[in-house]
Every structure is written in structure tokens, then in C-alpha cells.
């Protein structure tokens, strides 16, 4: 009877989770999606607490309260730190799955109830869970820059990584054949933990959007595996929704870089190919904030192209001031958003929304490109590889084939950059040497602030 009630509650909870994601399709209904998600989760927790097997609530209540206390500060981080927070929460998700799998293993060994099917599900759960845990911690460390963001590589890296994964799978298979080999289980845990570390170490900072999405998917799949271990359909459904979401985001990110999963995971992009290009002395034209202010003021269509550099220098609020100044003068200002700009999917949108830029001004790459020819000024703020025209025509360029925002097609292109140093991939950007490009050398925040000052001062006469 109670069991049926619990299953009914789980059924409603599942429906709410699906609706929650459904409502994310539009910013207008998205907040409703959060409420549906909260409702689904609350029902799931209440339903679970009704289970007659639960004999003692003390531990559960303590853990729930402590978890909530730890969760609140994590929800208040600055929006530039959201990628780290996300990586950290993938780590927590992986940890939970790994621990439940481990506990179930020893419990069932002791009770003599460890069937081969259960063992198989546990093996998948702990491998996914623990590799997500360590992989996400490394990703979070790189994003927080406590670890070096460049790819960390060593000889035979891929061979070592694959061997490690292979050994883990063999150990898992041995355990499935004979679940009683209890000594092998800790070996499996260590292998999974190590594999997670080695998987993410060679991945560079700019590939983080893809890696975070993949880890998101793994965290979801580990919840699915937990569903098979615990024989619980709600876990399978919710985990599959998360896994599907991570998968789609990973595909979107890979497409936006014209690269495959394999290339992102095993390519250690941005290490090898540096300094191979022909050293050709070309000069870029520099301009001042005053020149830029004049050009922007006299334009009728301006497209701003933000990149990770804008987030690093926290320039988004200055960018908002610039937007306001130009909008006041009747200039049509739009923002062109490349899918991989920033350190996680959608990062730029959130930062610009925080700076109170209306979201109907944020335009996706594919929608803005056909109109770039009509733009009077393209203003590049802290973006580099995503506006490099070499991606369109230079077959020797490592980023050849990557879809870019056609900043060079605007009548004038202004690029804010600290120096002429190449970006993360060590690739020179031809955009900076184009005839219609003017460089604005300086920190993004300071430079945009100066432009705003000139606009503001000029509006008085």
C-alpha cells in the first residue's frame, strides 16, 4: 500500500522534472521551470522518507540540514565563478553516486545478496561516479586557477589513459564473474579516481565548456546506474534527463569548435602547434578611446562581440554603460554570442543579463553572421579565436573550419586587447592586421570605461 503511494509520488515527481526542462525553452517561462523542479524534488524526498525500510531519521536529517547550509553560500557565488561552481557540483553528484555504490557493494557482499547483475550495475556506478568526482575537481581547480589552465601533457599520455580505463574495465569484468573477489573492489575505486584526474589534466582552459558538459553527462549517467543498483525508476529517469542534457550541450560545444569529442578529450589543444606559423612582420593600426567613441557615436548599427576576456576583467557593467550611452543616441546595439565564448555553455549570456542588458539584444552566431556586412562597427571585447578569419580560409590554421563570428565583415572593426600576444591556442589573429581593423590596447574594463567617458563628455555640447 505504502509502496504504491511512494511509486505514485515518484510518478508525479518525474512529470514535474520533464515539465521543468520543458519550461526552460523560453526565458519567459523558465522560472516556472525552477518551481516545477523544486516541487518534483520535494515530492521525491518526501516520498522516499515514507519508505517503511527507513528505521532511523537522525542521520538523514543531520545530513539534509548540513547539505542545505553548505548549499546556500554555493548559490551566491559571483557569476564569473559559475563555471567552477558547476564543476564542483558535478563532483558532488559523482561523489554521492560513488559512495552509494560502494556502500551497497559491501552491504550485499556481507548479506550474500550480490548477484552478477547487481555487481555490473555497481561497477558502472562507481566508475562513472568516482571519475566524475576527480575529473570535476580538476576542472574546478583549473577554472579557479589554483591549477594551471594550460594542458598538462606527458609522453604516451593517451596510451596510459586508455590502458588505465582498460584495466578498470577488466577488473570490473572480473568482479562481475565472481563478485566475491572483495580485494578487487578497492582497486576498481582507485582506478576510477585516477582515471578522472588523468582525463581532465591534459585539457586546456578554453576547452572547459565541452569538458563541463561531458562531466555533466557522466554525473547524470552515474545517477542512472544508481537507479539500476537501487532498483528505482525515478533515479533512472532524472539521471537520464541530466545525461541527455549534458550530451546535447557537449555536441553543441563541439560543433561550435568544429572538433570531435575525441579531439577535445585526447588532443591537448593549444600545446603542440604553437610557434609553427611563418613569422611575418605585420603591423596593426592602433586607435584611442576617443577615436573609438567617435566611430561608435556616428554608427547606426553596432555589434559587440564579447569573449572570456570580458569576464576576466569584469567589464560587463562598463559594457552596459556603453550600451546605454549608444542606445540613448539611437544607435542599434546588438551582442553577437559565440557558443564557446567563456568557460561554460551560455556563460556570456548570463554575464550580460547580470549587467542588465536586455536578452533580446543577445543574438546567436548563426543569426548575426548574415547581417555583419550591414554593421557599421564591430566591437570585439576580450574575444580572440572566435573572430579569427583564418578559420574560414587558412587550411593550415589549427582552428580551420571552426565557425566564427564575421567581425571582419563589418565596415570597421574595433578590437580591445591587452597586447598583441596570441590567444590561448597560440594562433595569430589576422583580424588584427586587416585594413578595416583598429586596435584598442588596454584592459577591457578600463578601455570600455574610457570610451563611455568620452561619449558622456561629448554629449554635453
Amino acid at each position, binding site marked *: 500500500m505504502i509502496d504504491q503511494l511512494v511509486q505514485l509520488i515518484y510518478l508525479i515527481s518525474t512529470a514535474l522534472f520533464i515539465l521543468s526542462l520543458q519550461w*526552460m525553452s523560453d526565458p519567459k517561462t523558465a522560472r516556472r521551470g525552477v518551481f516545477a*523542479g523544486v516541487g518534483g524534488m520535494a515530492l521525491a524526498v518526501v516520498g522516499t522518507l515514507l519508505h517503511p525500510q527507513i528505521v532511523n531519521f537522525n*542521520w538523514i536529517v543531520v545530513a539534509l540540514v548540513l547539505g542545505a547550509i553548505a548549499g*546556500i553560500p554555493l548559490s551566491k557565488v559571483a557569476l564569473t565563478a559559475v563555471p567552477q*561552481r558547476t564543476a564542483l557540483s558535478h563532483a558532488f553528484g559523482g561523489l*554521492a553516486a560513488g559512495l552509494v555504490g560502494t556502500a551497497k557493494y559491501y552491504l550485499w557482499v556481507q548479506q550474500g545478496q550480490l548477484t552478477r547483475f547487481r555487481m555490473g550495475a555497481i561497477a558502472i556506478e562507481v566508475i562513472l561516479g568516482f571519475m566524475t568526482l576527480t575529473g570535476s575537481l580538476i576542472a574546478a581547480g583549473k577554472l579557479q586557477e589554483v591549477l594551471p589552465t594550460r594542458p598538462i601533457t606527458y609522453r604516451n599520455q593517451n596510451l596510459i589513459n586508455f590502458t588505465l580505463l582498460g584495466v578498470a574495465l577488466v577488473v570490473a569484468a572480473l568482479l562481475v564473474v565472481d563478485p566475491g573477489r572483495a580485494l578487487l573492489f578497492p582497486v576498481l575505486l582507485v582506478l576510477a579516481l585516477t582515471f578522472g584526474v588523468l582525463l581532465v589534466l591534459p585539457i586546456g582552459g578554453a576547452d572547459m565548456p565541452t569538458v563541463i558538459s561531458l562531466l555533466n553527462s557522466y554525473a547524470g549517467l552515474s545517477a542512472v546506474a544508481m537507479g539500476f543498483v537501487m532498483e528505482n525508476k525515478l533515479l533512472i529517469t532524472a539521471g537520464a534527463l541530466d545525461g541527455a542534457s549534458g550530451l546535447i550541450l557537449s555536441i553543441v560545444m563541439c560543433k561550435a569548435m568544429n572538433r570531435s569529442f575525441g579531439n577535445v578529450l585526447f588532443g591537448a589543444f593549444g600545446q603542440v602547434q604553437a610557434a609553427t606559423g611563418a613569422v611575418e612582420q605585420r603591423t596593426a593600426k592602433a586607435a584611442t578611446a576617443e577615436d573609438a567613441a567617435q566611430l561608435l557615436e556616428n554608427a547606426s548599427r553596432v555589434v559587440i562581440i564579447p569573449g572570456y576576456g570580458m569576464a576576466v576583467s569584469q567589464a560587463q557593467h562598463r559594457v552596459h554603460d556603453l550600451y546605454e550611452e549608444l542606445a540613448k543616441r539611437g544607435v542599434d546595439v546588438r551582442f553577437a554570442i559565440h557558443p564557446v565564448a567563456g568557460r561554460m555553455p551560455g556563460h556570456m549570456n548570463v554575464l550580460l543579463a547580470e549587467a542588465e542588458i536586455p*536578452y533580446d539584444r543577445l543574438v546567436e552566431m548563426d543569426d548575426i553572421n548574415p547581417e555583419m556586412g550591414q554593421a557599421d562597427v564591430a566591437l570585439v571585447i576580450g574575444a580572440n579565436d572566435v573572430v579569427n578569419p583564418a578559420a574560414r580560409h587558412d587550411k593550415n590554421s589549427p582552428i580551420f573550419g571552426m565557425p566564427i563570428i564575421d567581425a571582419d565583415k563589418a565596415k570597421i572593426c574595433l578590437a580591445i586587447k591587452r597586447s598583441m600576444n596570441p590567444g590561448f591556442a597560440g594562433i595569430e589573429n589576422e583580424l588584427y592586421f586587416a585594413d578595416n581593423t583598429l586596435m584598442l590596447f588596454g584592459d577591457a574594463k578600463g578601455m570600455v570605461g574610457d570610451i563611455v567617458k568620452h561619449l558622456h563628455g561629448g554629449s554635453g555640447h
Partner: protein
Amino acid sequence: MQFDFLNGMFVLMLSTFVGLMVIQRVSRLLHTPLMSLTNAISAIAVVGAILLAGEQETRLSTILGAVAVFASTTNIVSGFLITDRMLKMFKRREPK
């Protein structure tokens, strides 16, 4: 209620397809909040963790279960709160 492997696979297959179709329609504007929302949803692992911590079969399973409840609850609370915080920021131009 009965659970067997094929049963589970059915549920997995259907929910994966539903997930793929629903997520494909999510606005690209909202990919960051989407990830924090699915983060919170996948903390459904709390269900398994609660059962483990509440059954109190062995000391090990209780402790590991409680830690897993803690980790999942952190994700639930921070995931939903930060998603809502971000979504509140997405505004259209005020009509004038």
C-alpha cells in the same frame, strides 16, 4: 513494485529520448541556467542516499549514505537557488 533489468531499460530509453527532445528546444540564452537546473535534478541521487542512511544496515553503509545525502542536498539547494537567481536577471527591454 516489480523491477527488472528490461523494465529499467525501457524507462531509460524513453526518458533519454524525452530528455533529448526537450533539451534540444531549450533556448541557447539559457544554457548556463539549464546546466545548474539539471545539476539540481540529477541530485535525485538523494533518494538512494536517504534509503541507505535510513536503513542502518551496517555502520559503513549508514555513514556513506549520510555523506551522500549531504553531497546531494548541497547540489539540490545550491542548484535550484542559483538557477533562479540567474533566470531573474534575464529581462526584456522595458517597452516605452
